[in-house]
């Protein structure tokens, strides 16, 4: 059965709604976990809702020009684009969104797209902290992308496809068919670069309030900030879903989706709670030394051994 275009759009919007709310609640839960580790009671799990409503309800906002205005829109566009072209639920005609052959290249593009839009926007704000934050963020993210790309190349060689849907299909039939067991080296490279993609604690110096308050979004406020927060909620889940699809066998229903993405996201929070923050030069060096080398080994593994 094929859905009409209208119903595909409507089901995609429903999926976006689920992912958005799940993302907000999940970030609340993760912050609660971090607080409990620190011995605090922590924020309510629904705090993100208050924050977004508050920011959207601010009565004033100022703009620094058209690119400043477009920055958060590009960022949100990147997050939603990433969602729209990724199959969420494997085997479901309703939540496969608009995935197509070769979509993984587009997904990698969307990962960078938002950051570049944000760079242009934050640059126009004219605040030195924004510019420093952006240059640090892009420098770090570029090295993250290299190891992530190597992991994807390894998977593409192994499964002979660039389609996320086909990659998930190739992993069906039991837990040992997951990329995690089929190519553990590439999975390791991917998961290490995932730490950088999610920008949790060892690699969050770009957004850290204590370092350069607070990096790219320094001048963003009111509805701009509300938009960036919405994007964050969507992006965290969609990135986790991407890694679930690539390495952990995808999900065949929403319960499996929620369980898997929770634990994938949780790995970054776990690492973040345990390890202190890197400086940017340290994290760039780390990404070039460790995940990059593992990523090259993953490609070799996929080409010659598997």
């Amino acid at each position, binding site marked *: 059965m094929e859905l009409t275009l209208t119903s595909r759009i409507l089901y995609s919007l429903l999926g976006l709604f689920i992912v958005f709310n799940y993302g907000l609640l999940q970030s609340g839960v993760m912050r609660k976990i971090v607080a409990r580790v620190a011995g605090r009671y*922590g*924020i*309510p799990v629904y705090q993100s809702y208050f924050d977004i409503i508050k920011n959207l*309800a601010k009565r004033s906002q*100022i703009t620094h020009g058209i690119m400043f205005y477009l920055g958060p829109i590009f960022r949100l566009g990147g997050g939603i684009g990433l969602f729209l072209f990724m199959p969420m639920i494997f085997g479901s005609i309703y939540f496969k969104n608009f995935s197509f052959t070769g979509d993984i290249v587009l997904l990698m593009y969307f990962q960078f797209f938002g950051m570049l839009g944000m760079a242009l926007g934050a640059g126009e704000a004219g605040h030195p902290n924004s510019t420093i934050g952006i240059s640090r963020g892009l420098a770090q993210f570029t090295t993250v992308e290299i190891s992530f790309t190597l992991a994807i190349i390894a998977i593409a060689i192994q499964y002979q496809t660039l389609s996320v849907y086909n990659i998930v299909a190739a992993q069906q039939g039991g837990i040992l068919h997951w990329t995690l067991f089929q190519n553990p080296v590439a999975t390791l490279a991917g998961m290490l670069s995932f730490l950088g993609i999610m920008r949790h604690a060892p690699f969050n110096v770009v957004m850290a*309030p204590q370092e350069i*308050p607070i990096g790219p979004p320094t001048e*963003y*406020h009111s509805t701009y900030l509300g938009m960036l927060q919405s994007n964050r909620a969507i992006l965290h889940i969609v990135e986790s879903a991407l890694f679930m699809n690539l390495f952990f066998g995808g999900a065949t229903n929403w319960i499996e989706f929620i369980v898997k993405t929770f634990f994938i996201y949780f790995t970054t929070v776990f690492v973040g709670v345990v390890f202190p923050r890197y400086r940017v030069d340290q994290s760039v060096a780390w990404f070039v030394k460790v995940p990059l080398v593992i990523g090259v080994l993953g490609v070799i593994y996929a080409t010659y051994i598997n």
Partner: protein
Amino acid sequence: MTRMDDLKKRTVTAPDGEVFTVDPMKEYFCDKRPEVQEPAHPLLEKFFNWARSNSLWVLGWGTGCGSIELPPLTTPRFDMFRYGVQMRPTPRQAGVFIISGYLAVKTLKRVIRAYEQMQGPKYIIALGSCTINGGMYYDSFNTINRLDHYIPVDVYITGCMPRPEAILSGFVELKKRIRAGKAEGANDYAERFDWYKANQKKVIKGWDMPDYNW
């Protein structure tokens, strides 16, 4: 170049030889008075106020000795996060400004600039006796005595120093005020702008900053 010359219109030659004029007062600052921002429809406003009261973002800037009582609020013992209070490092994103203790005239200048850059509705909590009547600095040559002559204050917390518990109770009071729709300091500042500006200029000698900072 003195401080005043910094703000004057001038011609600059860029490294690549391009010549252009810079007018800092026009380009870096706004030249508009603050305006009264009307609340939304009463029902909607009630909902917004409920959300605002549960999401207080404090500007992380200690203006006086009272700020030593703020860091304990983030620790497990007092934990302000459970009340929805969080620290923000930039005035653009913050909604609550805590004036922590005595305010030197030099600091007052920065307070005014930071306050004006915050986006409304914005609230001020004044911490300690110094903000009420000058406290132990009542006869000092360079501190102000009564804060609400210079910026609109929502909640005063007395004490020298107020304990973190007192600050938490101040937050609870502020929440009540916001929910009741009484915390309209930003609009009060816009309405009585001339009066506030006159008071500010009375104490700040050699006023060398723009009148409008948002």
